């Protein structure tokens, strides 16, 4: 015959266990929120607000820690996430950017066009160049009266200093296999032929930019071509020439969405949150990379000296 268990149930111990596990649960929730890059508080709501801030770049690690940049892979991911979320009825692009990489701008503009949700571009202070390209891809564009918009054009200017090198008796030893391999090198003077070729490519990108804006805004390409001279327009001027649909701010944007979708808009910010691990690994990664190069110079010298970037 088996022995009857002699242990007596102790309520004090049971309550202690429940309290302990509950506290552990609260701590776990806090730690999870801190370490994993998911902003759990921001996942409710029916209108996604996606910021397009600072320079538009094509890679995630372009900004130094707290620099305000918009990395196209992150933004495209956020747009797709909002598009897949059945609770989100509309997407607002809160734009405050002077533009940036032509490729990155196009990637974001394509993602905006592909969504099945209502998209509204809200230009606050600046929505110029590449940022305007993105704004034009939305279903509706609202801009502040005094905001800077437009600036449709392409730029690839750079400093050229062969004269300076010569003055200090530094010679550029040209070793290339391929006639145009070092086109755009700041250490040598650009030939007329190279310049023409470069200009040809810039014109091609500009032409594509103009076509995209005309298509997105349902405008005549010739009309857009006339205003695509790189000049910026104030919000009120942009409204007159058809670059934006309405003058206003957040209220006008929300009113448009509520009317179109027949909903009471609850805005929720979609932002790429960096977890503690992300920030630490970013800092560690940058520090490791900059050892030897000089941490001081690394903070300011962000671009390789012999490269040209085409920005819109």
């Amino acid at each position: 015959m088996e022995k009857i268990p002699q242990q007596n149930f102790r309520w004090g111990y049971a309550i202690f266990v429940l309290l302990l596990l509950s506290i552990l649960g609260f701590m776990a929730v806090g730690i999870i929120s801190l370490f994993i890059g998911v902003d759990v508080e921001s996942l409710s709501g029916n209108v996604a607000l996606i910021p397009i801030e600072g320079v538009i770049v094509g890679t995630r690690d372009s900004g130094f820690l707290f620099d305000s940049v918009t990395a196209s892979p992150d933004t495209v991911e956020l747009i797709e996430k909002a598009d897949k979320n059945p609770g989100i009825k509309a997407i607002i692009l809160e734009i405050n950017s002077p533009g940036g990489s032509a490729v990155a701008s196009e990637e974001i503009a394509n993602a905006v066009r592909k969504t099945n949700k209502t998209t509204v571009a809200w230009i606050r202070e600046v929505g110029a160049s590449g940022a305007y390209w993105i704004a034009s891809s939305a279903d509706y564009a609202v801009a502040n009266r005094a905001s800077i918009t437009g600036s449709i054009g392409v730029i690839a200017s750079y400093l050229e200093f062969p004269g300076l090198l010569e003055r200090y008796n530094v010679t550029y030893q040209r070793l290339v296999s391929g006639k145009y391999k070092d086109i755009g090198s700041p250490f040598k003077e650009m030939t007329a032929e190279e310049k023409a070729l470069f200009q040809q490519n810039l014109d091609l990108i500009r032409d594509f930019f103009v076509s995209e804006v005309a298509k997105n805004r349902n405008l005549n390409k010739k009309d857009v071509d006339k205003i695509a001279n790189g000049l910026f327009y104030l919000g009120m001027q942009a409204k007159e020439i058809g670059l934006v649909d309405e003058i206003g701010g957040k209220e006008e944007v929300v009113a448009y969405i509520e009317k179109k979708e027949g909903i009471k808009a609850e805005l929720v910010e979609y932002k790429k949150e960096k977890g503690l691990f992300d920030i630490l690994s970013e800092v560690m990664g940058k520090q490791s990379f900059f050892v030897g190069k000089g941490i001081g110079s690394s903070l300011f010298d962000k671009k390789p000296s012999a490269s040209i970037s085409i920005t819109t």
Partner: protein
Amino acid sequence: MKRLNLPKEKSFIGPALLWKRIAAFFIDIAIINLIVLFPFRSLFQNIIPKDYSFSEAYKLLSSSTDYTGFISSVSFIMSVLVVLYFFMLERKMGQTIGKMIMKVYVVSDNNSLKPWQMLVRNIIFIPMFPFVLLWIIDPLFMFFTKTNQRLTEILSRTRVVEKYSFEQ
């Protein structure tokens, strides 16, 4: 004629009745859900809007690797807390709150309950392969063994018993 001096009450222990075991389990799950997993409820409510159907919630959670990684981490931590609930109470007192209410006990085939036995009998709560396979197999054993033991109870050499008594 002289009568034998037998005890008035005779008692012995045997396998706990199935319905008592099931009732004890649901009481424990209710308590765990109310108290231990309470912090996680608000976390999930923030992610999944209340009016979402199951398919909508599934679509949302599978829309990004962020969500799936997040759900996996949270599920794992929740399961650890559930295992700890059973582990701490059964190890110390041989009973959880549900078992105490239903008056059933966990006993070891050996003398006392060892930590490894507690872990093995509660490993079913970890939502990872291959343990998830036990979610169906493990309770089925209870219905087909004489001693009403689950598979993990057989492996851990433990049983859930109750005290039967009758008067002579």
